[in-house]
């Protein structure tokens, strides 16, 4: 079920019987046909255990289940929306950036601290993203919110990309991410360039970057 762009801040998705969709609670703007919106108590898929997992990981954004027949328009807070079509790979994204996604995608939570040990833990602190991130895997579409539009940067083994942690939105593919610091004596005396921390993404995949350094 692909999302159709209405404009840069609104998407429309068809809903057919037997095909569920998840969306952030309150993100529906309008709908056609017979569509029901049920708050998802478990906050997504996978039963009670994954609900507890998400609660513990603080990745439990209130979600609702969208079912029925018709089409639904989504948008939230005037943020720009970027749609990502997945064909089997995994998308890593913060839960609060998720606007809507197909029920056919498997939702999970990943511990980011496992990538890079102490620096991995520090990464979460610096970026304000915490230690966990949401993963979506399978075949389907995802609508992701960002402040000021999103651009995609391809990452290849020969061409790692560095991203400002505040401008990082999501990534997909086989990417390792590592927090690199460029702290020198200038930062210590308060004359930093404002680019002391960067996320280094290496491997094979795509990284989504927003044109702003503001969080949602």
């Amino acid at each position, binding site marked *: 079920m692909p999302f159709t762009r209405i404009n840069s801040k609104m998407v429309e998705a068809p809903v057919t019987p037997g095909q569920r969709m998840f969306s952030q609670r309150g993100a529906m703007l309008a709908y056609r046909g017979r569509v029901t919106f049920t708050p998802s108590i478990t906050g997504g898929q996978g039963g009670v255990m994954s609900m507890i997992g998400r609660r513990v990981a603080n990745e439990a954004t209130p979600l609702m289940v969208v079912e029925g027949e018709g089409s639904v328009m989504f948008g939230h807070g005037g943020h720009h929306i970027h749609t990502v079509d997945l064909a089997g790979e995994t998308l890593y994204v913060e839960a609060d950036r998720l606007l809507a996604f197909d029920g056919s995608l498997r939702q999970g939570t990943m511990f980011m601290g496992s990538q890079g040990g102490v620096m991995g833990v520090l990464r979460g602190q610096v970026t304000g993203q915490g230690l966990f991130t949401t993963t979506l895997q399978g075949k389907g579409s995802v609508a992701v919110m960002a402040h000021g539009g999103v651009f995609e940067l391809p990452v290849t083994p020969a061409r790692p990309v560095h991203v400002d942690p505040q401008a990082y939105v999501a990534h997909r593919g086989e990417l390792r991410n590592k927090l690199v610091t460029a702290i020198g004596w200038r930062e210590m005396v308060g004359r930093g360039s404002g680019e002391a921390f960067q996320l280094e993404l290496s491997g094979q995949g795509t990284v989504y970057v927003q*044109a702003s350094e503001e969080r949602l």
Partner: protein
Amino acid sequence: MATFRLHGTRVLAVELSGDAVKAKNGAMVAYDGEMTFKKMTGGGEGLRGLVTRRITGEAMAVMEVKGRGTCYFADRATEINLVRLTGEKLYVEASNLLATEPALRTGTTFTGLRGASQGNGLFTTTVEGTGQAAIMSDGPAIVLRVTAQTPLIVDPGAYVAHTGNLRQQLQTAVGWRTLIGEGSGESFQIRFEGEGLVYVQPSERTTVGGQL
């Protein structure tokens, strides 16, 4: 040679091959290749530049980005406009200047009362030389031509930048209505006369004049 390229309307991509560009502090969102970021102390214009900026308050925090690869800049999702300068002078508010090519010189000039009414202080930044500069506007900026026959009047809060040989003058329309708090919100305007271009954004900064 650094090349400036727009990636959409809100992201500036700069290709670097060992040279350096000046950019607003903290405006990098992503890069590939090798880059180093250094805050410029004194703006590269020597001690005099440092002292001037300190006194005038037109303290644009600038960093020097040097390296090889592509560096992407963006700031609070504002729209970016590229301006090519061939020897003329660009007047722009420090907060609206995103990046400049190394060949361009930046300085500070006194603007008088106009600056104060814009909420930007009494001084403005000038960019001079040959090369490209990237300026930011809140919403897509329009470029308006001013000729000797057609002067232009702009809201101080919507003014972004101007080039060319222009005289500017603050004009007020403060009447008894303004004094009793029934002003139209357009009590202050800047009048441009001469030959040149003025960049105007579809949004207004909060200014002292805007409240009246």
